[in-house]
């Protein structure tokens, strides 16, 4: 077995026990990247020199007998919308092709404090807008399970690098499913924590009230470790909450007897993909066999989630992306006579189609005369959706449903009609609308051997329940052990 095939907690232990050196681990991962990246295309940039330098420092400290942290020496990849000082943060956009961040995101500081070594930045949908990573200006990332198919998105690169053993874990961001859906498509563990649990400082904003950073890992234990590293109050982020720290690894417990698991029956019945449904009901059977109590829940307003989402997210995006105006940084057109030209042409040339579509949508819904009918109404519906979940969680510990209505699709399959693409998010966006945590864990494969994910959702700030439910499921199944052959 190669080093790169290990899980995060396995490799961290080997480093700590000095069975392997950090350099050996880095060598192993980079050699894997040398091999697999050509096929998968998940990285936008690598920072080898920086990684080896950090590795040396960590090794020295370790050799002196110091504790180098829970992620001590572990190579980790970062989605390219998270800022790292002196490194590019492109958001996979021509607009930010040459943007080098002057500062570190809080999660980066925290990861490095925990001993992680950042090895590269991963591909994504442009400005995190998409469900396929195909809107990237720079390259196509392929699904490691089938190179003809998309890895999901928007954090497709971060999912693919973990799935193909090109990193032990990675960070992504999730605004409407951008961690969970690619995790599902690539058969890895992906979690979006509660809004406010992980600092957003340094995450290049798409939709501020929905964005959240979260980890991709090879298994649930690794997810708990990553959460331990990145969860915490940040005074640089007003929306980050100040709660007592939890050790999520304490909830890695197979015994879930008596746990109440909610099933939104109406929503499941509405799904068309029989293979996804089959995998889902199989998962329910697993839970039953573990002694969990299965309870039907009703999420009446969930059907309005998608329209609510596409109003709120685009409205916020239209404002957040205003700063890319060709003046201070990023792309500037060469064709201009006056200021208005700079704005118009830089943005026309610098943004891709999907980004422009969403900026226009968001501008429209905030315009005077339309604000009440769209944005204000969407905010009201958002409250109804939050209440829906709140009510459901009065009777259950977690709610489970498939992560995505379908498995990974082929390139070009859903690009003709944007709405078809948007519909892929239908099971993930409600969680962002309500600000709740949700994880996707491997739960099966369809007849094309494409992965199917199970989504586990808990009430706000109860990630430990997700950890517990996910861990018990993982330990009772073999899905997470399968790796794509490249």
């Amino acid at each position, binding site marked *: 077995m190669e080093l790169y095939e290990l899980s995060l907690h396995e490799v961290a232990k080997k480093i700590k026990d000095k069975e392997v050196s950090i350099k050996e681990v880095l060598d192993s991962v980079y050699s894997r990247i040398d091999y697999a990246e050509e096929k998968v295309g998940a990285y936008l940039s690598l920072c080898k020199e920086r990684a080896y330098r950090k590795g040396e420092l960590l090794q020295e400290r370790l050799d002196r007998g110091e504790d180098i942290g829970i992620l001590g020496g572990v190579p980790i990849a970062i989605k390219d919308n998270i800022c790292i000082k002196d490194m590019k943060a492109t958001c996979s956009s021509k607009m930010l092709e040459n943007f080098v961040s002057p500062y570190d995101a809080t999660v980066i500081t925290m990861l490095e404090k925990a001993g992680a070594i950042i090895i590269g930045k991963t591909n994504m949908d442009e400005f995190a807008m998409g469900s396929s990573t195909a809107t990237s200006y720079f390259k196509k990332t392929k699904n490691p399970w089938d190179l003809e198919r998309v890895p999901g998105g928007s954090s497709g690169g971060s999912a693919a690098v973990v799935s193909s053993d090109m990193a032990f874990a990675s960070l992504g961001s999730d605004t409407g499913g951008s961690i969970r859906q690619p995790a599902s498509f690539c058969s890895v563990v992906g979690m979006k924590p509660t809004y406010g649990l992980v600092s957003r400082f340094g995450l290049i904003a798409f939709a501020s009230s929905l964005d959240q950073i979260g980890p991709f890992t090879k298994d649930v234990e690794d997810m708990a470790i990553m959460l331990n590293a990145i969860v915490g109050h940040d005074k640089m*982020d007003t929306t980050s909450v100040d709660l007592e720290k939890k050790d999520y690894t304490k909830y890695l417990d197979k015994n879930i007897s008596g746990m109440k698991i909610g099933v939104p029956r109406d929503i499941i019945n509405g799904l068309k993909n029989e293979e996804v449904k089959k995998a889902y009901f199989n998962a329910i059977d697993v839970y039953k066999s573990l002694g969990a109590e299965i309870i039907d829940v009703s999420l009446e307003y969930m059907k309005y989630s998608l329209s609510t989402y596409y109003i709120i997210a685009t409205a916020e995006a239209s404002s957040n992306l205003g700063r890319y105006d060709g003046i201070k940084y990023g792309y500037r057109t060469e064709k201009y006579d006056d200021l208005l030209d700079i704005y118009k042409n830089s943005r026309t040339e610098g943004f891709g189609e999907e980004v422009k579509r969403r900026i226009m949508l968001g501008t429209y819904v905030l315009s005077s005369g339309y604000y009440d009918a769209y944005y204000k109404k969407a905010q009201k519906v958002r409250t109804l959706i939050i209440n829906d979940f709140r009510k459901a969680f009065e009777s259950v510990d977690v709610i489970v449903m498939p992560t995505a209505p379908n498995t990974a699709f082929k390139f070009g399959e859903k690009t003709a009609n944007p709405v078809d693409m948007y519909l892929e998010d239908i099971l993930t966006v409600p969680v962002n609308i309500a600000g709740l945590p949700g994880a996707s864990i491997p739960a099966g494969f369809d007849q094309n051997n494409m992965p199917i994910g199970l989504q586990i959702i808990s009430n706000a700030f109860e990630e430990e329940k997700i950890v517990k439910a996910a861990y018990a499921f993982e330990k009772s199944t073999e899905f997470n052990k399968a790796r794509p052959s490249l």
Partner: protein
Amino acid sequence: MDIEEKIKEYEVVIGLEVHAELSTKTKIYCSCSTEFGADPNTHCCPICTGMPGVLPVLNEKVPEYAIKMGMATNCEIARFSKQDRKNYFYPDLPKAFQTSQYDLPLCEHGYVDIIVDGVEKRIGITRIHIEEDAGKLIHDDFTGSTLVDMNRCAVPLIEIVSEPDIRSAKEAIEYMKALKGTLEYLEICDCKMQEGSLRCDVNLSVRKKGETKFGTRTETKNLNSFRSIERSIEFEIRRQVEELENGGVIYQETRRFDDNKGIGYAMRTKEDAQDYRYFEEPDLAPIVSSEEYLEKLRASLPEMPNARKKRYMEEFGLSDYDSFQITSSKKMADYFEKTVSICNNPKAVANWIMSDFSKMMNEQELEITETKITEENLAELIGLIDTNVISSAIAKKVFIEMFETGKMAKEIVEEKGLVQITDTSAIEEIVNKVVEANSQSVNDYLAGKDKAIGFLVGQIMKETKGKANPKMVNEILLKVLEAKKNS
């Protein structure tokens, strides 16, 4: 057409939007300094320059200052308030939105009282909200390019919006002075208008007297001196009346006033008015103020002009008008009190401040603390009068020199030998000399022409270069004349 006569047929309706830069040490959403005048782009960071991925954190002093201003201007203070994004593109606005407040401002429904031509008037305050300033564009003639200085980006501001209660340039100035005074009392704004830390937009319309509907208003932006506020208002009144009298129409438009040329011109009309697409700033939590917090703030407010005015009337026996004028500026009132504490003659201090001193300050557009005359110096001058060392007439001359040079009163008096003559025999000598030399005037006086005495006094003062004690001169002259009458 006599335009001045026509203007009298119209009523002017004015509302002011006043922007005051708050004197917090750091900016509104980051820890950069707010200091004025630093080298371009040295007081900025990724946050205030709108780098990708940054988030704002509200400086707590900002709502605190705004609430204090609201309390001092009799506003209702919101228990729940929020911040909103005002979206528009401009190179001095790096985020492409200004964080401001839209529908839930911190303070609403207040007022201030002003006195114009002796008549008290109440001006309503619609709202006070917090927002961030934008950067500064500097046109570089050398390269023909425009440069951006982001030092001022995200310096905290409050915007104070008045009701359309103002009816003249004079009222507008008094209202501005009242706000300035309050800001200074609260020590929340340095009110340096020439540096732009206090500036205003004038909304103005006219209507025929008796008309109940408002006319179409224009907004003249960014006026940063009392003089330009006054002149721009006078200009705009005249322009609107002329336009209407000539059968024209007033367009709702944004205007600029060129202080050098003394004329205003249109910048953009309502047709290209921007849609700012306001919405709640999702990166900032609502501002929730507890009763306890507000009580604490209320208790921390300093003595405000009204209370101070009452105290001056009671403690110092000053008139209503003098007390109002002196206390309307904190700097002036502090100056007054310090001077009084040294010379212990409040009425004299008030007289000096209200008359000669104010006149000279106004001429040179100086504030009392910017003049060369210290409290100690003014107190010394008053002391010299009170102890009969110099006469009031001499004192006025000494004062002018003090104002110009900053020298101490005593020094000037000694240098120029201005000490008053209070020696009876010396005065008698001069009186006798003048009486002898002016027999015609003496005869006039003896013939019952009382006026003649004034001429004689004048001659005596001339002879003594104004240094003789006027009271003694009068007494001795009368005595001498009386003696002549009886002889």
